[in-house]
C-alpha cells in the first residue's frame, strides 16, 4: 500500500514539476432578465404575454472545454460540475494548458455518470436540493418565481429541468467564440429565451424529465451569449 502511494505521489510530482505550463481563464457570468441585470423586483413578459418575476435561479455547468486556435483540437478541462446561483456573483476559473484558443464551451447540466453512481459530494451534494430523490437524477436548471397568469398555488411557477437519459436528456452543450485570449470571458446569461418557449397559463410546473422539459432545454443554448 505505502509503496503504491509513494509511487503515485512521485508520479503526481512528476506532473507538477515537468508538465507544460498552465494558464487560467476566468469566466464571468452576467445574469439577465430580458437584457437587464437580474433582480428579484424586475418582471418580464414572454411571447405568451405572461408576466414573470424570478426569485430562484440555479443551474449546473460542466464539461468545460476550449478549442485550440491553430490545430482546431478540442481540449477537455477536468473539472467537476459547478453549481451556479444566478443571484450571487458567478466566476469560474478554468486551468488550461498555455496556448491560444478560438472557442470556449461547456454543458448546461450534469453528465450521466454523476447521475448513476450514488451520492456525490461538493456542488453535487443532494443536500443542495438540485437532486430528485424519488426519481434519481440532477435538476440541471431550476427557475422559480411568480406570475399573475399562473394557476398554481401562490401564483408560482416552478421549472425544474433535468434528465440524463434518452429520450429526455436535457444536457445542452454551449460553444462560444473566444477571441481575446488575455481577458476574462464575460458571458451574458438571459432567462428570456427560456420563458419564451413556455406558457405559464398552461404549464406552471415542470418537475420531472418529460417533453416539456425537453422543449425548455432546447432553448438553453439561446440563453448564453458574449
Amino acid at each position, binding site marked *: 500500500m*505505502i509503496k503504491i502511494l509513494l509511487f503515485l505521489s512521485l508520479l503526481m510530482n512528476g506532473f507538477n514539476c515537468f508538465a507544460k505550463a498552465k494558464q487560467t481563464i476566468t469566466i464571468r457570468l452576467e445574469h439577465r432578465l430580458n437584457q437587464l441585470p437580474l433582480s428579484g423586483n424586475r418582471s418580464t413578459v414572454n411571447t405568451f404575454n405572461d408576466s414573470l418575476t424570478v426569485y430562484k435561479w440555479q443551474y449546473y455547468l460542466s464539461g468545460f472545454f476550449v478549442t485550440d486556435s491553430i490545430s482546431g483540437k478540442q481540449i477537455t478541462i477536468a473539472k467537476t460540475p459547478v453549481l451556479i446561483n444566478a443571484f450571487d456573483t458567478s466566476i469560474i476559473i478554468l486551468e488550461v494548458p498555455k496556448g491560444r484558443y478560438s472557442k470556449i464551451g461547456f454543458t448546461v447540466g450534469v453528465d450521466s455518470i454523476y447521475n448513476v453512481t450514488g451520492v456525490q459530494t461538493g456542488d453535487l451534494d443532494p443536500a443542495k436540493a438540485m437532486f430528485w430523490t424519488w426519481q434519481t437524477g440532477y435538476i440541471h436548471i431550476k427557475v422559480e418565481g411568480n406570475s399573475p397568469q399562473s394557476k398554481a398555488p401562490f401564483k408560482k411557477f416552478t421549472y425544474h429541468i433535468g434528465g440524463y437519459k434518452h429520450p429526455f436528456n436535457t444536457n445542452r452543450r454551449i460553444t462560444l467564440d473566444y477571441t481575446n485570449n488575455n481577458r476574462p470571458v464575460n458571458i451574458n446569461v438571459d432567462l428570456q429565451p427560456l420563458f419564451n418557449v413556455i406558457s405559464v397559463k398552461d404549464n406552471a410546473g415542470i418537475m420531472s424529465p418529460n417533453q416539456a422539459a425537453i422543449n425548455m432545454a432546447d432553448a438553453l443554448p439561446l440563453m448564453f451569449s458574449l
Partner: protein
Amino acid sequence: MKRIITILCLLLTGALLCSLVNYENSTRRKLRYKNLEYPADWPAPVYDFKSNPLSEEGIELGRQLFYDGLLSKDGNFPCASCHQQGAAFGTFDHDLSHGFNDQHSLRNAPPLQNLAWQSLFHADGGINHLDVQPLAPITAPNEMAETIDNVLAKLQATKHYPPLFKQVFGSAQITTQNMSKALSQFLLTMISANSKYDRVMAGKDTFSLPQQLGHQMFMEKCAGCHPPPFFTDFSFRNIGLPVEPTLNDFGRMTITNDPRDSLKFKVPSLRNIAASYPYGHDGRIFDLQSMLDHYRNEVQQSPTTDSLLQKGIPLSNFQKGQIIAFLYTLTDSSFLKNKKLGAPGLP
C-alpha cells in the same frame, strides 16, 4: 528556478506522504473489513463495493441510523417504522405505509432483502442506486418529512455520531454521502438465503408432498417472472391489476413517460412472502389466496398486460393450495429473527 521548484516538489511529496501515512494509522487501521456473505451458487452482486467497502463498524453505524428517529422530522419515523424486521423489513399488516402527520405514502413498504443484487429500486424503478435510496423517504413530506441538511445537522449535534463517522469514514464531518454509505452497508447485509427452500436445494432438508408439487407448478407457471434464487427477474411487468382511481399510480410509466410502460411494476421477490402481507404495490391484496385468485380469474387485459398472462394462470383449488404450501417454504426465520439486523442496544 528549476532547482527551487524541484526542491519544493520534494518537500510537498514528503508532506503528502506523511499525511497519508497518518491517515492510514489513525483511521483505516481500526476498521474490520469484511466481505458480503452469500451462497456460493448465487451470481455476483451488482452493488459496487469498491466505492463503499463493508466493515463491521460501517454496518453497525448503518444499523444505528436505520433504527434512529432522528432521521425523521418528529422523531417517530425511523426507517424501521415502515421496514419492520418481522415482516422481512416490509410493513406488517398495512396496505399503504404511514408516515409523518399520519399521512399515507403512495405505496406499500416492500420487504428489504438481497438488495446487493438489485439495480433499480421502488416499484416504478425510479431510484437507480442503493446509496441514494434513503434520501427519498427522508425528504418525502408524507414519510419522514425532513430536509437532508437538517438531518445532517441533527446527527452532527449529537455526542454519539461524529466519532463513529470519523472511525468509519475518516472524518467526523457528517455528509450526505457518508450517511448514505453507512445506511447502505447495513441494508446490504440483509441477506435472506436460509429458507426451507434453500435447505432443500442444498440437500439438507426435504419438501412435503404438497410443497414438492407446488414447487413443480411454481417453476412451470410463475418462474417466468419470479425465477430463483431471488424469485424475481427484476423486470417491470403489468399483471393486470386495474388502476386504483384515487392513487392513479401508473408505475414504470411515471418514470419513463413511455405509454408502453403503463401499469408495469417491478416484479417483487417472493422470499419471505408469507411474512410480508398485504401484497401488490399498493397492498390491495390481503392474502396469498386472493393473490392467486387474481392470477386465476381477475387479470385485466390491456395493451401492456404481460404476454405470459393473456389467459391468466389457470389453477385448480387443489393446485392453489400446493403453490401456497410451496410459497411458505420461502420463509427464512433465521433472517426474520437475526439479532444482527435487529434494533441496536441503546447507545
